[in-house]
């Protein structure tokens, strides 16, 4: 009954989306005076998808095994939290989550939008409905999440144990909020191109959405990186896996958009470029979803692969992105560029930021799809891995990080002050860091050394926009920018420290043996059995010490029964200056066990930096939404609008 209610809600939502799309065409052709109806329809559509998604959560929470999806992916013995999380830990459920977020975002656009013209809003809601329509069709035709099984099986088939982790509860939904949040930017750009309404007002309407989506993407990627780090037991935080890249590419595009949109909002310039980026950012989200869902690229994330679904998603990608690019090609000549600017100006800084981010995006895109094209053309199989990405994207990212310190100091339109002088102190700090690394670790390779240098410089340079200002009167958006830029420095320091100072020890050890890794001496005390609700495990006991104090770590190898799978549960101990990371592998007949020990100095800074970047974004978003009223009271003059 609940499943049928969910299905009915989904059909109704699809019907409303179709209506919304048809009404948009009518309104734009000035035949129908239906504009006032658009907002309520969009809101009801969002509510209906929420009902459908709630129905799915409910059948998973109650483990209704007569629903095929539950029987495939759940199990009565699974902990309650993972039963609920299982609702989106599979193809159909995740697509339902996708379309729910899409429709709810449309509903919020209808509810909140005050800044765009009525025609543009109608066009945006129509294009959002068109996006949703494709995914409704996908769900209802090719992957119905509410399909029943008759007779119902006695027990479910479980869930990939790698996904039975708190990380799963947050990582995919967070990324989806980001992916789909960009759909609003896409729809607004499409609408503005359609109605010839690309201006600063549109940019201000679009900006909170881009910012919001970008925050979710940042947090989603950070959380996903940490999940891979501790759950897979490989000790790495980023593998340049196609699916990781699939989440990085929209983030890069959104980051570029986030900066260029400020130029459009403040100065009315970079119109065509910003619209292009808005389209590209959501396109990258769709490409990302396609890569994950279709399994065309070999990946550790291939949880759900099905070529037929791939075909459907590819068709949607072709229609939506193709339509947007055609419209762009037709309209971009009519876009008048806004106020001019000189070579040394905030605008130029943001253009350079965009160029570098776009090139990095291109590098990641090329590296991700290169194996596919090489095989298509020559039949040769190859894979592109970390050496390419680090060597090609790394230096560009460092250059970008250097410029991040400079950009916010520049004035709009033209800069006549000697800005470089203000960077003297940060530069000095960077050089000091460089000298220290040369003295302390002369053997360090070039990229980590430069990474530490730039991180030290950037941490200092990022706060310069606050120097000499009353902190209470500084706009929240400026604070947000500063925090986010400091976050970049922190994350960069973590990556460089991890690359430069990580110590690894692989050993086959017997109980009673002592191993050393970095400053630690680790005693392998022994192994004992352990059990959870749906798994049993072999648990190793490691007693680690460095001079004083004793830390006990208990890494496990778990055996899940439904379906039968082994996983490694790393034991990680966090200290202020790093993490001790331990994994226990298989034992051999003679009573020895494989142990992997890592000492990773300052590795936690990577995720702390990611969190800071997201937090900075949140501050900026609050600032943008909060400041709306006072700024409107101050009214009208774009020259007074402070950039942050």
């Amino acid at each position, binding site marked *: 009954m609940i499943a049928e209610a969910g299905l009915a809600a989904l059909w109704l939502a699809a019907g409303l989306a179709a209506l919304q799309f048809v009404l948009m065409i009518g309104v734009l052709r000035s035949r129908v005076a239906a504009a006032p109806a658009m907002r309520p329809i969009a809101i009801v559509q969002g509510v209906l998808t929420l009902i459908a998604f709630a129905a799915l959560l409910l059948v998973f929470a109650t483990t209704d095994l007569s629903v095929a999806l539950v029987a495939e992916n759940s199990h009565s013995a699974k902990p309650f939290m993972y039963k609920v999380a299982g609702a989106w830990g599979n193809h159909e459920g995740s697509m339902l989550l996708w379309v729910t977020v899409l429709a709810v975002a449309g509903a919020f656009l209808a509810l909140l939008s005050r800044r765009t013209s009525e025609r543009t809003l109608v066009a945006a809601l129509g294009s959002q409905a068109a996006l949703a329509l494709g995914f409704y069709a996908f769900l209802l035709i090719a992957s119905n999440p509410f399909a029943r099984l008759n007779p119902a099986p006695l027990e479910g088939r479980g869930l990939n144990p790698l996904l039975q982790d708190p990380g799963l509860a947050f990582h995919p939904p967070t990324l989806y909020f980001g992916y789909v949040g960009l759909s609003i930017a896409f729809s607004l750009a499409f609408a503005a191109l359609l109605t010839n309404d690309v201006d600063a007002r549109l940019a201000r309407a679009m900006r909170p959405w881009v910012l919001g989506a970008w925050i979710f993407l940042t947090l989603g990627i950070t959380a996903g990186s940490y999940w891979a780090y501790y759950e897979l037991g490989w000790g790495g935080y980023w593998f340049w896996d196609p699916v990781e890249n699939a989440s990085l590419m929209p983030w890069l595009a959104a980051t570029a958009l986030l900066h260029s949109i400020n130029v459009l909002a403040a100065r009315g310039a970079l119109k065509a470029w910003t619209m292009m980026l808005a389209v590209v950012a959501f396109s990258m989200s769709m490409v990302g979803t396609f890569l994950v869902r279709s399994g065309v690229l070999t990946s550790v994330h291939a949880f759900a692969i099905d*070529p037929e679904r791939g*075909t459907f998603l590819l068709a949607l990608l072709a229609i939506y992105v193709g339509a947007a690019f055609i419209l*762009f090609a037709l309209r971009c000549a009519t876009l008048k560029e806004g106020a001019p600017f000189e070579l040394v100006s905030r605008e130029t800084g943001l253009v350079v930021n965009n160029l570098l981010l776009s090139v990095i995006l291109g590098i990641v895109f090329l590296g991700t799809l290169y194996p*596919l*094209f090489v095989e298509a053309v020559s039949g040769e199989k190859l894979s592109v891995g970390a050496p390419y990405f680090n060597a090609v994207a790394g230096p560009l990212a460092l250059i970008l990080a250097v410029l991040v310190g400079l950009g916010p100091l520049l004035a709009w339109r033209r800069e006549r002050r000697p800005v470089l002088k203000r960077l003297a102190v940060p530069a000095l700090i960077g050089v000091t860091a460089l000298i220290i690394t040369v003295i302390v670790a002369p053997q360090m390779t070039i990229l980590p050394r430069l990474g530490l240098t730039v991180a030290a410089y950037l941490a200092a340079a990022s706060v310069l926009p606050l120097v000499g200002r009353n902190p209470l009167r500084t706009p929240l958006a400026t604070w947000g920018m500063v925090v986010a830029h400091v976050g970049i420095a922190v994350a960069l320091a973590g990556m460089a420290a991890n690359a430069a100072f990580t110590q690894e020890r692989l050993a086959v050890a017997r109980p009673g043996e002592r191993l050393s890794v970095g400053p630690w001496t680790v005693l392998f005390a022994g192994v004992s059995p352990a059990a959870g609700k749906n798994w049993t495990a072999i648990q190793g006991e490691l007693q680690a010490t460095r001079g004083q104090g004793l830390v006990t770590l208990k890494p496990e190898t778990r055996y899940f029964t439904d379906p039968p799978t082994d996983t490694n549960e790393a034991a990680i101990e966090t200290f202020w200056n790093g993490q001790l990371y331990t994994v226990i592998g298989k034992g051999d007949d003679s009573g020895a066990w494989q142990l992997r020990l890592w000492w990773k100095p300052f590795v936690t800074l990577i995720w702390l930096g990611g969190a800071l970047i997201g937090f900075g974004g949140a501050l900026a978003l609050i600032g943008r939404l909060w400041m709306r009223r006072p700024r409107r009271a101050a009214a009208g003059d774009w020259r007074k609008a402070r950039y942050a």
Partner: protein
Amino acid sequence: MRAVRFVPLALLALLLAGLVWRLATPGDTTVGSKLQGQPVPAFALAAALRAKPGLSAADLAGGKPRLVNIFASWCVPCIGEVKVLQALKARGVAIDGIAVRDRAEDVADFLARNGDPYERIGSDPQSGVQISLGSSGVPESFVVDGRGVIRYQHIGAIEQADMPLIMAKLEDAK
């Protein structure tokens, strides 16, 4: 300048073409041994059974092509493969075995139950030789010519239908 406007569209078309091609021709994810066409790396394995000699690289350069089968008593597909190997043996194919991560009593039990097509069986307790041959699982087979050069790698069990292929590869290796 006008053409620039269509660059995104052209890139999209290229991307779509690539992805459509991939969907139409699902990738073959098996990765073959890089040693095909190369001499067998030097190795010498102790006998897996007391009754049979072990296997070394020198045994594979005896002038006649041989089939080297990598198997294990704990490997389920290997059970079905034994019948096909015996049929090959009946046609005069010389077959050697490498038992991976196995124990003598288990190998003896496996052969007693399923049949024994092997002339020599080497024991590879830590998969060292298997890995050096570029094999990633069991069962796998290599056609090695009389000079000890690997001519063909067969990934997975040799089925009844693969027999003509294997015979042809052995013929080529002469």
